[in-house]
């Protein structure tokens, strides 16, 4: 089946965006909602068709001598900057982009379905669906990009649509500042990304992925060993590109925007902050992986950042009170897992198991994290508050959400039958291969993940009963629970997909075999975490509060996200605004304006002085005249001799 159909995947959401955006206001909520969902359904079907024909279809040289080919479905030159650097818009199909197609479209479709129920009765309902389709379009565009510039274009579009979605409830100032913060932080990271692209384009003289990743060694040589402040220029370019990815995937220094992005409606968090946008950074590194392999120093950097972020996020998640914040931090730590997996992946160990593991984890994580978020959305929808203090003992009232939530928690903490175990185990295998330290660190963090997930689970569904007053929390309506059930089912099944056959770094098939020693330790640690959580939080007991008081300082710091936000706020507001912008504005207003006004003033003063001379007194004139005459005489006399 030829792939010309694939461009449709991009066009339909875009058309939906225009339709809903311009005409949306006229439509009723119902019509707009279902229209959006149906369109997304069609896109999902097409995407599935493409992915399956790509993976399973024969013919058209899909699998030439074991290497799965990269097919460029269509290419339309968008802007020819110079004869070599041409920006094209097109669709590139290869294992990771096909896999991402499936992930994005499924999650987006389910979120569309879910938000019909969740957003029921919200003002600006159609606008929400317009932004959702814009987001899906840009995410799909990003994934299927043929050249790095097209990826940058859709990268920015993703940033803007996340800004619009986070700031959906624009009447509340918190949402406005959160969306502004999200956009500016990602924009700052995009600056790094842009500079990385520019350096790359200057040295490699091309944007196209095929050329870049085709023969990476020649690209590195083309840099001619130019160095810049120590590291080779290419290393700098790749590090900067990773910085762009880190910003989008909320890695350590640039993660502050993700927890605040929870201001947006929960379906948005489910779609953007669980499954798709945050994963863009991982996808970028995966896409440029052959180049990264040339610069191992950058990979080390990536691993370190990954581990630091994972540990940081896990520790903070353990003390958060808002359930969505907990899930946000758990997303950050899971993404950090994937980044570390990519960081540690080396072709010589086990044919790059890290690369395959991170992609697999990406796939499974998208599923169960979306399920968790949607579950949390259902709970908030029922209880109308984000804080777990207002919840407790919900398992009686919301049985379906309870089960799906439990399944996803088990998956995320890496318990065998569920998909989380397989993907996380692969990551641990890759980490151990690279160096024991990374392995141990990751398993400890995995344990912490298990602990805080189950802490969350027990606090919501077990714990003592809150008096819910007259209106009892009821089970979410059907349209919200169906996606939950689907996602839970997928998390259970996904573990058994032979992922290795499809997605590997050099696109050769390779079968996974569980390395039981590593798997054993990880399961053990996870179980310890779960047991600890059950002991502390199953029954309402004073133990956790007493523990918190014991290390009051640490607990407060963790709760306050180690004061990162305050640091950023300090930097931006105090330093940039107060010390740079205001003085510049003052400088401009007074010094430069001052000089211009000074010219005017000087001329005015001089003219008033001259005016004084015409005093009207005849005698003044005579004296001046006379003295002038004498001076003239003297001068002529001087000249004469």
């Amino acid at each position: 089946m030829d792939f010309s159909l694939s461009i449709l995947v991009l066009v339909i959401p875009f058309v939906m965006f225009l339709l809903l955006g311009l005409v949306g206001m006229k439509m009723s909520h119902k019509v707009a909602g279902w229209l959006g969902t149906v369109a997304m359904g069609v896109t999902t079907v097409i995407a599935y068709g493409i992915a399956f024909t790509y993976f399973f279809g024969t013919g058209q040289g899909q699998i030439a001598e074991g290497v799965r080919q990269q097919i460029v479905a269509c290419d339309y030159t968008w802007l020819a900057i110079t004869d070599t650097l041409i920006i094209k818009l097109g669709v590139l199909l290869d294992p990771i982009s096909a896999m991402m197609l499936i992930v994005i479209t499924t999650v987006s479709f389910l979120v569309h379905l879910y938000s019909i129920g969740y957003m029921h009765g919200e003002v600006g309902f159609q606008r929400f669906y317009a932004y959702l389709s814009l987001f899906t379009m840009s995410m799909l565009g990003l994934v299927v990009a043929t050249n790095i510039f097209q990826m940058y274009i859709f990268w920015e579009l993703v940033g803007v649509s996340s800004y619009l979605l986070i700031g959906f409830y624009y009447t509340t100032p918190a949402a406005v500042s959160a969306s502004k913060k999200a956009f500016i932080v990602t924009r700052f990271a995009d600056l790094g990304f842009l500079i990385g692209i520019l350096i790359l384009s200057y040295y490699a003289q091309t944007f196209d992925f095929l050329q870049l990743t085709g023969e990476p060694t020649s690209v590195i040589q083309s840099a001619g060993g130019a160095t810049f402040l120590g590291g080779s220029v290419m290393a700098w370019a790749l590090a900067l590109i990773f910085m762009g990815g880190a910003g989008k995937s909320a890695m350590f220094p640039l993660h502050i925007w993700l927890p605040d992005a929870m201001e947006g409606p929960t379906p948005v968090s489910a779609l953007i902050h669980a499954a798709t946008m945050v994963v863009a950074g991982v996808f970028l590194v995966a896409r440029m992986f052959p180049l990264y392999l040339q610069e191992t120093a950058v990979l080390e950097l990536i691993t370190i950042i990954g581990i630091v972020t994972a540990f940081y996020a896990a520790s903070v998640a353990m003390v958060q009170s808002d359930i969505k914040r907990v899930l946000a931090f758990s997303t950050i730590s899971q993404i950090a897992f994937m980044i570390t997996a990519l960081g540690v992946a080396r072709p010589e160990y086990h044919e790059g198991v890290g690369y395959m593991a991170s992609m697999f984890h990406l796939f499974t994580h998208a599923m169960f994290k979306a399920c968790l978020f949607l579950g949390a959305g259902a709970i908030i929808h029922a209880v109308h508050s984000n804080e777990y203090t207002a919840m407790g003992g919900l398992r009686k009232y919301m049985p379906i959400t309870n089960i799906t939530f439990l399944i996803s928690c088990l998956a995320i903490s890496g318990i065998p039958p569920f998909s989380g175990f397989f993907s996380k185990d692969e990551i641990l295998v890759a980490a151990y291969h690279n160096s024991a330290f990374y392995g141990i660190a990751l398993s400890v963090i995995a344990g912490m993940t298990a602990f805080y997930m189950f802490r969350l689970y027990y606090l919501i569904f077990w714990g003592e009963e809150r008096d819910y007053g007259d209106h009892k929390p009821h089970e979410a309506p059907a349209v919200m629970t169906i996606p939950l059930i689907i996602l839970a089912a997928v998390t259970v099944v996904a573990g058994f997909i032979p992922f290795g056959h499809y997605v590997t770094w050099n696109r050769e098939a390779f079968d996974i075999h569980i390395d039981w020693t590593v798997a054993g330790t990880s399961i053990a640690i996870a179980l310890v975490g779960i047991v600890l959580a059950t002991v502390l939080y199953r029954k309402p007991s004073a133990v956790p509060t007493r523990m918190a008081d014991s290390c009051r300082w640490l607990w407060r710091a963790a709760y306050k996200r180690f004061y990162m936000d305050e640091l950023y706020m300090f930097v931006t507001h105090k330093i940039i605004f107060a010390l740079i912008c205001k003085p510049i504005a003052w400088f401009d207003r007074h010094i430069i304006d001052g000089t211009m006004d000074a010219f005017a003033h000087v001329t005015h003063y001089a003219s008033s002085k001259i005016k004084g001379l015409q005093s009207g007194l005849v005698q003044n004139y005579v004296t001046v005249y006379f003295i002038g005459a004498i001076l003239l005489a003297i001068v002529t006399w001087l000249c004469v001799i």
Partner: protein
Amino acid sequence: MESLGSIILYVIVALSIIVFSILAVTTRRILRAATYLLFVLFATAAVYFMIGYQFLGAMQIAVYAGGILVLFVFAILLTSKPGKQAEQLTAHRRHLGLLAAVAGVAACGFALVTFNRFCGLAMPEATPLDMEKIGTMLLGTGKYQYLLPFEAVSVLLLACIIGGIVVARRDKDNDKK
């Protein structure tokens, strides 16, 4: 050397000119200034006589001392109540004036001194100068004769007279006020 007498006479005349002109300028009362001016005019006439230009001296006395001074006196009487005009000067103006005067005198003096070609030159012999010669000179059109300036001056004087009358005519409406 010329006769001692003429030198003495010259000194007297020069001194009188200087003294009287200073007095004329610095007196308080305007009438006294006019009289000093009269003495200065007479002294100049004496100078002219000394150098032998009798016609010129006569002219000077007749026109200047006679005509102009009388005009002055009339003007003074017309415009200022006698005895009131005590003048006081602002220091600033005085210094300025003094400075200008001294600078002027110094410049002219210096110029005179440098052209010392003729000082100490004896009085050359007096060429006969009679009225007939002056008359032809004024009215002739030859090389050194000045008919044109003569006519010009006459026209000027006519204009002056008419001007004077017009300006000083008593204004009709002014009186009614």
